[in-house]
């Protein structure tokens, strides 16, 4: 089964929000007036000159907002028209014109005066100034200080962890227009149409029933359109409200990168105590995330980092504390993994340091610390199916020839002075569910027509992850029809209300179960009709015959479905509970080669074994594993966000911010799914797959550290490899100099 839109993708017929543009006569293009400062008071603003530009129709500023001019999702801390700008390029006004060119020329004529203020552009400066959005957030188990002090060995360290630009190929876009009865209709590239609807209604000061937000599909999202689609939809809607004309807001790449949030950069400080054999006794950990100018989703991102600072390992005593720093940068947001990666990278860093300190093989130290059946996490949740960690590990070590290759690589490294290879295996344990329990609900509306064709509406959005492909299979199987009979409709708030974001890898678990619930009801009604007809001697009816008969017997052919994840709870006050429905597991082996002259490196081979439960769509799931892995590889080795001293993003375009491209694909890339792994209590026995594979890429980072260590093998200092993230050629080069000296 291939992606349900595959044919439309390859022919170019698949439509995305901005492809609809030509359908709206009289459409206006919106362009922002950008602040040239990262932090400043806006002293005065005069939009009038823009109106003198031919083609300019209107301008938008604070006085044009009938409702509340703020798009902040939770804290309402994101003014659309700020008095005080708090990050570089923040829009202070917008210009609407018949053409994009006219809107840009108009925006250049808007007069704005600023009084620059001191800005904070790093986590270190934020800590120095005690500039925090929130914190401390804390999870504690046992007495970590005592445990570390009593341990035979201890080490401490720091790790700088870079952020990551989503670089969804389709940038942020919204097109709004009046609907036919006094409301407003917004096409938005959003992962969360209900929240986009809420923000539009808030800004316009109207009830939500007057606002419809729909999303046909997105050209990638990765978390970057979970809340950050909202302001652009709000501006478009505000423009329509003011001018009564369709309005398009589309951020070109450079503007998207300048204005929208990214994966949070983190800074970690830690102290660890451990046994002679590498087993952990206790860890103290402080995590500082760079939240940027507004809170956004930074709190749950930090919490997920705290939840995942154990990865797959039992930490008997742990004190993990986190702060969200407030800086004058883009507002960092959800990104595949949602803080999990930043928590997990630290424990992987620590375990490699422990192994090098003790002169043990890193994979031995890792496996000695695995969770076993019955173990409980630091937040009090029993690790369900913990034995799968070791099972995956053992199976992958065999299928990847891990032990033999370790030998071969050691031999290679003995005979090569200038290039060295490294090999590493790392595990992933990732909790599935929104940690805010109330988000774990979903709705669906299934419509069956008399001819047996089916429309499925659900609250989830398609961003390439294959949700619609899986939903179509679920609906087709539940109703007993061909997949071709099932049409997945544009996600729209007028079909299913009050939905959650398509996020947290839970899109299929939640929406699939809701769709199944609706189909089950219809199927039950049809079964009744079938039995009646059988009693009358009519047998072997087609689905279409059955639906026509049901209609004539006045049996309803549509149903809404609903699902809420059972038995999850979490108490933030005590930091304990069962926040996750289950855990997704996997492991990866990576082999890399480093050029000692430059620090440049190649990933030679990757082997992955992932627990996807009973896969609903193996092609889709393999795609998620491979794509997530490469995205993780990009975050860890290549992609670098650098802000200059004025707070401008210096790597703010595709020519300066480098994604993994064709050559980064490992020449050998083996992916397998764990067998005998059906997950009870989840639709179809499948497991979430969106986020977990990203963290499999730790194997690449750890293999790089392994290779760096090999360069230092002959030096007296040979040992702990310190390497901040991302491991760019330059960072690796300097790490090599440290290793050699």
């Amino acid at each position, binding site marked *: 089964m291939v992606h349900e839109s595959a*044919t439309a993708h*390859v022919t170019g017929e698949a439509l*995305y929000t901005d492809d609809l543009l030509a359908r709206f006569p009289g459409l206006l293009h919106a362009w922002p007036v950008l602040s040239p400062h990262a932090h400043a008071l806006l002293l005065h603003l005069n939009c009038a000159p823009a109106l003198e530009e031919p083609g300019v129709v209107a301008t938008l500023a604070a006085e044009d907002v009938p409702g509340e001019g703020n798009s902040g999702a939770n804290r309402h801390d994101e003014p659309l028209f700020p008095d005080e700008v708090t990050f570089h390029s923040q829009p202070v006004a917008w210009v609407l014109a018949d053409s994009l060119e006219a809107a840009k020329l108009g925006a250049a004529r808007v007069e704005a005066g600023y009084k620059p203020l001191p800005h904070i552009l790093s986590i270190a400066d934020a800590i120095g100034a005690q500039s925090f959005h929130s914190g401390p957030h804390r999870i504690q188990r046992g007495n970590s200080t005592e445990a570390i002090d009593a341990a035979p060995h201890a080490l401490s360290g720091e790790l700088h962890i870079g952020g990551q630009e989503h670089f969804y*190929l389709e940038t942020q876009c919204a097109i709004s227009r009046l609907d036919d009865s006094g409301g407003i209709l917004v096409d938005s590239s959003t992962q969360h149409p209900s929240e986009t609807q809420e923000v539009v209604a808030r800004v316009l000061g109207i009830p939500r029933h007057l606002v419809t937000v729909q999303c046909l599909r997105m050209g990638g999202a990765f978390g970057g359109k979970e809340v950050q689609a909202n302001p652009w939809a709000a501006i478009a809607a505000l423009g329509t409200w003011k001018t009564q004309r369709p309005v398009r807001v589309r951020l070109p790449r450079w503007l998207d990168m300048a204005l929208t949030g990214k994966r949070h950069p983190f800074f970690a400080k830690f102290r660890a105590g451990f046994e002679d054999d590498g087993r952990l006794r206790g860890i103290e950990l402080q995590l500082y995330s760079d939240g940027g100018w507004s809170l956004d989703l930074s709190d749950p991102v930090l919490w997920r980092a705290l939840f995942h600072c154990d990865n797959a390992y039992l930490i008997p005593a742990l004190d993990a504390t986190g702060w969200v720093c407030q800086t004058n940068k883009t507002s960092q947001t959800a990104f595949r993994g949602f803080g999990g990666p930043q928590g997990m990278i630290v424990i992987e860093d620590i375990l490699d340091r422990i192994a090098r300190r003790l002169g043990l093989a890193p994979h031995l130290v890792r496996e000695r610390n695995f969770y076993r059946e019955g173990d409980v996490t630091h937040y009090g949740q029993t690790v369900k199916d913990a034995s799968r960690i070791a099972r995956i590990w053992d199976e992958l070590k065999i299928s990847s020839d891990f032990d033999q290759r370790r030998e071969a690589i050691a031999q290679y490294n003995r005979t090569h002075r200038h290039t060295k290879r490294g090999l590493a295996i790392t595990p992933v344990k990732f909790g599935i569910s929104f940690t805010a329990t109330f988000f774990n609900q979903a709705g669906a509306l299934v419509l069956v027509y008399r001819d047996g064709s089916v429309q499925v509406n659900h609250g989830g959005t398609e961003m390439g992850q294959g949700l619609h492909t899986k939903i179509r299979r679920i609906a087709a199987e539940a109703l007993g029809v061909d997949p071709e009979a099932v049409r997945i409709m544009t996600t729209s708030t007028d079909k299913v209300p009050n939905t959650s974001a398509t996020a947290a890898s839970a899109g299929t678990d939640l929406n699939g179960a809701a769709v199944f619930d609706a189909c089950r009801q219809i199927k039950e009604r049809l079964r009744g009709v079938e039995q009646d007809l059988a009693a009358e001697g009519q047998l072997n009816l087609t689905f279409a015959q059955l639906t026509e008969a049901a209609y004539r017997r006045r049996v309803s052919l549509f149903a809404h479905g609903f699902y809420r994840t059972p038995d999850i709870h979490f108490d933030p006050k005590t930091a304990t509970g069962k926040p996750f429905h289950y855990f997704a597991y996997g492991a990866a082996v990576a082999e890399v080669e480093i050029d000692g002259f430059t620090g440049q490196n190649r990933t030679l081979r990757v082997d992955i074994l992932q627990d996807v439960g009973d896969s609903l769509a193996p*092609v889709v799931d393999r795609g998620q594993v491979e794509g997530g892995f490469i*995205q993780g590889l990009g975050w860890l080795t290549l992609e670098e966000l650098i802000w200059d001293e004025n707070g401008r993003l210096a790597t703010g375009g595709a020519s300066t911010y480098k994604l993994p491209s064709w050559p980064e694909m490992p020449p050998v890339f083996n992916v397998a799914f764990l067998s005998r792994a059906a997950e009870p209590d989840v639709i179809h026995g499948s497991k979430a797959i969106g986020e977990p594979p990203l963290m499999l890429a730790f194997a690449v980072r750890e293999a790089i550290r392994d290779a760096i260590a090999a360069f230092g093998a002959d030096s007296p200092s040979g040992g702990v490899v310190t390497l901040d993230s991302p491991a760019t050629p330059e960072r690796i080069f300097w790490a090599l100099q440290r290793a050699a000296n």
Partner: protein
Amino acid sequence: MDADCAQFRLSLNGTAVRIHGLPPQTTLLDFVRSQGLTGAKEGCAEGECGACAVLLISQSPGENRAVCRAVNSCLVPLPAVAGREVFTVEGLSENGTLAEVQNAMAAAGGSQCGYCTPGFVVSMFAEQHRCDPDHRDLHALGGNLCRCTGYRPIRDAFLSLGHTPEGRIQQRLLEPASPPQRLRYRANNAGFSTPLSLDEALRLAAETPDSRFVAGNTDLGVVTNLRDTRFPDLISLQAVPELKHFTETPDAVEIGAALTLTEIGERWQTAPPVFREWLPLFASLLIRNSATLGGNLATASPIGDSAPLLLALDAAVRIASLQGDRLIPLTEFFCGYRKTALNPGEILSSVRIPKPFPHTARFFKVAKRSLDDISTVAVCIAISGRGARIALGGVAATPLRVLEAEDFLSNGDIEGAQQALEHTLHPLSDHRGSAAYRLAMAKSLLAKFRAEHEGQI
């Protein structure tokens, strides 16, 4: 000479289209999308992602037939394709039957979000129509970015492709491409001209104050798209035959400045190995299909990758003007940061590389990403009977040779050469790398050259 006109024609998916009154900076991408052909997408607007790729029917060098080349339509000014034939992804399927590349991509799971997919399909289609499976370049898709798949299924789709299939584009390629057309297009107070001779180009420039020459537009297009710079008059050198020559004599090769990198690769069959190793590092195929050697030199970027190679090959450049032409060593061409020896109205017409080529030459590029990235440092080292040449990019305001280091290297003294680099070079720190790393790389690559030479790698 023709009077200015406000219209021209092109062929879009086999149908003639008349363009009238659109501003000259309108990109081919924006135009095809305005025609309802929304398969091509804007992913970056600077030629890095390939989501906007379309096919151009071009003349095959030295053959009486055409080739189809994939180009980034976001960097093609619409008047640059006046009179030419363009195919978009929508034009690849015929009568509802998908092209083989489209079926292969769909079956392999090569699309997830689908946004980059049309660009990949176009690049793949061009490569399938370029040659038979045994000669395909696996890196032909290197200019297309995908954020979803990790590329493996796209590679599988690519490797599954058979021989060039029959079809209307394949049939079209059996005939020569449409000949270039002279154009003097003017709309919205801006002009775009395509002269058909060197003399015409020089006269046009002399008559038109504030005019700029443009060839592949892979550099000016970025400035146009990202910084909204508007050029009042562009003079395209794409169709000037004197700039498209490739001549080889016993003494030298001379490469026309308006030949694209792809055309040079096809024409220069006797090129030294260092050229073949340099070509894929220079840029992606999507860029090489548009970008010219003359353009890369004339922009005088300190990190342009052609300069280190050509400096190490001891190249000279020919500069044409209405008064005649002059040949100057490339070392004298770069006068300062983005400044060249070109006087107003002059055209860089060709690059001359003397023979014999160095017996040993290596081009090293250090960048964050192995391909399709801008150099942090680029070094080309060449050894010939007359000694060593070391040319570097990314370490100063201009690409340069370090003669003192060359003297040491000629005597086999690597450490001396490294010290000479150390006190000659004063690189800057930026987002691509620190000054210390750049200097370390310049020195380290000398050591790598020696290690390779001594067979240690």
